[in-house]
């Protein structure tokens, strides 16, 4: 109980710190959102209109500290303000639209990547020096070293454009109405295959290599020898004794990865025109859309913190020693 409380306090402080950073970091960027936004008028904008628009968009002349106070109050009330780039849509509605797609795409991809990678790592370590061990980890580490967008473009060009096996982009066929039907569901899955494959291919190697290396270290432990000596089945030793213990560090990184899912896989989403969070983030930065940036940072932070909380809980379950701590 003390453990949980201590963790909770930590999370509250971490949340405050990141909310504060989310406010100040965008404002340290050079330039300001008005001039960027008005740039598309190529200087034809009337100065009177400009001042009026500033007010309409909510740019105030208050000191930074005053603005910060207003912002904190709004965040506590759950008000994220109005997006500048998507004016007059609210930040919550813009993020809400995108969040679903990112969770679907990147969430599933990370889970697949983690599961396959970890299993592959276990198998590779168990049959150390076998054909699996000597081909898979190097192959996937090599793939992981390719830039994300390059991999995405290669998949898009070969499988999407040349062979026409998969659609080129978007989250579903826009000629199918989004409703609970098989046609829509299969369209969503079909559209997610290529972008998800990009993420899986690019990240699986790291999971596999980490898992393999920890497994090998664990397999040298005495309790493994004991388990083998007791005559337990190799599968039981591999999964229940070695893999469970070797999993701990990977679970920590999994929590982090799950949290970062929300920040989206920016490049993957751009290459495939996937309407997720990653693309929003890029747009927000480019147009210096402070409210949208703050909202995005906030959701990302909350997701990372939430995922870590889950990891803490999982730890307590996987490793009984933490419960006494």
């Amino acid at each position, binding site marked *: 109980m003390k453990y949980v409380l201590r963790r909770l306090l930590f999370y509250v402080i971490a949340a405050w710190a990141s909310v504060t950073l989310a406010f100040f970091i965008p404002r340290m960027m050079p330039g300001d959102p008005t001039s*960027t936004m008005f740039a598309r008028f190529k200087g*034809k904008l009337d100065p009177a209109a400009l001042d009026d628009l500033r007010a309409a968009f909510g740019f105030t002349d208050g000191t930074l500290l005053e603005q910060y106070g207003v912002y904190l109050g709004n965040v506590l009330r759950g008000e994220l303000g109005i997006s500048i780039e998507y004016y*007059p849509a609210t930040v919550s509605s813009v993020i809400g639209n995108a969040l679903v797609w990112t969770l679907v795409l990147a969430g599933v991809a990370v889970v697949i990547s983690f599961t396959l990678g970890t299993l592959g790592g276990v198998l590779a370590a168990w049959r150390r020096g076998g054909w699996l061990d000597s081909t898979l980890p190097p192959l996937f580490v090599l793939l992981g070293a390719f830039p994300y967008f390059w991999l995405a473009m290669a998949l898009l060009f070969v499988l999407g454009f040349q062979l026409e096996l998969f659609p080129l982009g978007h989250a579903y066929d826009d000629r199918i109405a989004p409703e609970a039907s098989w046609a829509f569901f299969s369209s969503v899955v079909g559209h997610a295959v290529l972008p998800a494959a990009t993420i899986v291919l690019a990240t699986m190697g790291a999971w596999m290599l980490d898992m393999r290396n920890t497994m090998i270290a664990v397999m040298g432990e005495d309790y493994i020898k004991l388990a083998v000596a007791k005559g337990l089945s190799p599968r039981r030793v591999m999964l229940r004794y070695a893999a469970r213990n070797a999993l701990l560090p990977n679970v920590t990184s999994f929590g982090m990865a799950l949290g970062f899912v929300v920040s989206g896989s920016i490049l993957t989403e751009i290459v495939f025109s996937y309407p997720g969070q990653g693309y929003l983030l890029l747009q927000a930065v480019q147009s210096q859309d402070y409210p949208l940036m703050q909202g995005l940072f906030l959701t990302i932070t909350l997701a990372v913190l939430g995922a870590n909380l889950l990891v803490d809980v999982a730890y307590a379950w996987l490793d009984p020693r933490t419960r006494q701590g």
Partner: protein
Amino acid sequence: MIAVQTRWKALAALALCGLSVFGCSAERSELPPGVLVITEGEQTAAFIRNFNPLAEVGDVRWAATRAIYEPMMIFEPIEGEWLPWLATGSAWNEDATQVSFTLREGVKWSDGEAFDADDVRFTFELLRETPALDLRGVWSHIEAIEVRGSHEIAFTFAAPHVPGFSDLAHQPIVAEHVWSKVEDPISFANEEPVGTGPFTEVRTFQTQVYELGKNPHYWQPGRPAVDAIRFPAFASNDQASLALVRGEIDWAGYFVPVIDRTFVARNPEHHHYWFPLLDGTVFLYANTELEPYDDVAVRKAISRAIDREMVVKVAMHGYTRPADATGLSDAYARWRDPEVAKGDWVKHDPDKAGAALDAAGLVRGSDGWRTLPDGSRWRPQINVPAGFSDWVRAGQVMAANLQAVGIDARLKTYDFGAWFDKLQRGDFGLSLGWTEVDPTPYGFYRNMMSPATVVPLEESAPVNWHRYGSAEAEAALADMASVADEDRQRALVVRLQQIFSEEAPAIPLFPGPLWAEFNTERFTGFPTRENAYASPSPNAIPQALLVLTRVEPRGSSTAQPEPRP
């Protein structure tokens, strides 16, 4: 072992099949004929439903200003004429202080109500009450609006203001009976628009696509011939290009590299493009408040050092040509004076450039680099916004050109916001930048050299970033504002061109192309070089209306295209 291997193979095959089932089932179904697919110029992954034609600063959909709402008249830049639209004609009074428009009879809003002069008056009154919507500042010139009967309206200016015509004629007109009930016209998203335009009925609106059906009450008989227009969202140029090459888009306005090979070759019969040089000229701005750019000889020397042929080839894929000494793009082709255009200060001549720099006192030091009068090395920086890949390439070529004549120039990229901020505040030596396009070159030359637009360094300048003022130009501009007669205007524009070429306030590089690609497999009637009835790009406001009302589904054509309304 063999058994195991076959099992694996079978599994793998099954998995692939499974995935491709989704792939194949996601194969795009045929669109119904008559649905024209267009790409919005703006790159976005998710559409927000906003059809407010007045609040252009918001995230407004393409259709608002190009398909739903219409202006009184449309300027067609190729012939250089004003086409009647919601108004059938216009007239200036003697001293160019008042202009009147005769409105078209029988025009209806898409909800069936009649359109009349009160709608026009209401639209402009709305701009007066909400300065944030008066983006071009029409109310800084208008004194009064007078409705003279149901289809006649007159605007009176405080002083003669002929260039103000286009702001009036191009203003999208909204319906009084709808907008008078709107509380805040800036944040109004206008989700169910009521317009006079050819496409007004929102059939579908999703984050990644929207579709508009035709206006049941459209005023042009038998038009539009197209049943609906449809817009898929694309997050990047690459995505849009792939869809275009695959024939999924009928009308697009994107930059496509080596277009003959990537797009046309794939279907030479139906894949067409036309990139007329109707956008503004791209300039190298030199900050005339700073040494040594305050010297016209130095600006001309820099201009002579630049190899524009190379810039155009490397940066623009040969889609444009070097600018001439008038600085005018083809949007102003009929104003261009052939004598001034021959000016040689925009021709590549490194020897002459070097000699001029020597004469200006910017001589080469012992290390071969030119020095400023105070003895320090001259190290100009060419500012370019990061991500504008064509400009970045142009900047690289120019830096190399300047180095060749002994100027230690470098390219410097900034984030867009930072770049634009520096440009506006005059915190730069050399910077790339755009120019605007209007029906007449008045605005172009005003921003180029009117003392009225010069603000001190550190203050944000909306135009005239290079801060150049010419008293002679100001006199010609003032005359131009008060003369409605086109022949007299032409003489003044020639005078402005002469002043521009003499004083070289900024360094013209190349006229900007407008991007326009068409797929004629399902539709015909797009503007082409041979049938240049309108600016071909879907990005052009409001000229896209001309195209939307002319395009027809293939095979439905009724012999010859009808004359313009």
